[in-house]
């Protein structure tokens, strides 16, 4: 586990890693939408760069979803 961010697969905030999260709710542009990781950790994520709906899985880096996983 990385001491700064608690992420277990490398470091999600320090390098070019991304975390898989599930979209729980959507939000207006430049406003965070609630997403959760596999272990239930919730975070507000900008979905501006992807077409994501509730239930979709997205890759999140730096608080922004950069890709939506294949449905």
């Amino acid at each position, binding site marked *: 586990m990385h*001491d700064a*961010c608690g992420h277990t*697969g*490398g470091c999600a905030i320090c390098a070019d890693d991304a975390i898989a999260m599930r979209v729980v709710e959507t939000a207006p542009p430049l406003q965070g939408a609630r997403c959760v990781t596999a272990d239930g950790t919730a975070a507000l994520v900008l979905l501006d760069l992807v077409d994501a709906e509730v239930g979709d899985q997205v890759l999140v880096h730096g608080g922004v979803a*950069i890709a939506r996983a294949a449905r």
Partner: protein
Amino acid sequence: MRFAAEYRDGTIGRAIARRLADVVDPDRLYKLMEICGGHTHTIYKYGIGSLLPANVELVHGPGCPVCVIPMGRVADAIAIARQPGVILTCFGDLLRVPGSDGTLLDARAAGADVRIAYSPLDALRIARENPRAEVVFFAIGFETTAPSTALTLLRARAEATSNFSCFCNHVTIGPPLRALLDSPDVFLDGFVGPGHVATVVGSAPFEFIPAEHGKGVVIAGFEPIDVLQAVLMLLEQLRSGRCEVEIQYVRAVTAAGNQRALEVMDTVFALRPQFEWRGLGFIPDSALRLADEFAEFDAELRFGVPGVRIEDPKACQCGEVLRGSIKPWECKVFGTACTPERPIGTCMVAAEGACAAYFNYGRLAAGARAPEAVG
């Protein structure tokens, strides 16, 4: 969560390993580079090396953003942090990267207000909460991270947050690979391409590798099965005489990349004509600055920075590690003078760094290292 457990399945991993043994030519050596530090981490954490045929070697590339940042830029960040009224925010690993005059952690101990931000948006929140302070975000990272910084700056402009600025050190993946392939002491048979960068840029920035250098690229995900499958795909390219860019990480990467992310990056950033990379020197068109339209948020313009070039410590061989010329344990100071607790080089600082990854996981693998090299 989908796409995790099935990509860590040992049965599948061993099946791919058997297939690898069938594909390789036992009379030749194969040297493949994993570009991204995330892959390096996966390879060591899951012991991928032990599943590869003995004549297949994985070497580490320049894809860890903390590792490639030169000491001079760290010194610049420290200079900003020491200015009165400044809150400097950065990702956690940057705190421990040595500059010429200590680290950001040292600067904080001496009184500078240096804080960990979990994202650029977190730094912007700190700016909103501290309207009397100048909040600077020390931005690093490849095209994976740059869209997040870009969106943050768009939001800062929309909110008219005037006490927020960005010390921009974002870099791009294509030019350092070109520099690497042009260097005379690097001999590689193919590349495991960086999956998360490719979610943004797509496969186009890697097409010059087969076209101009005759080497294959397989863009891979970050689970152990992803990496093993990418190695298999590269070896199959070599066996069949092909060299092309293939995408293993199809569940997240498309050839076109994320057009929306590329557009916001185009809006907010412009290419720097030159940028220094640790171990690779100055590389043209390899980094981003804020575009003129966002100059009001540019910390380099707002504060001025020393901008001096600082040589790496003589003992540190991060440059050779980042070019894949040596393995981490072949560095003179690996595991002795340089450890994760007291790093000399950036490759030992970052969690994604090859030296830190090997120190944390790989050194436990018997026979995979020179015994005297590890403390």
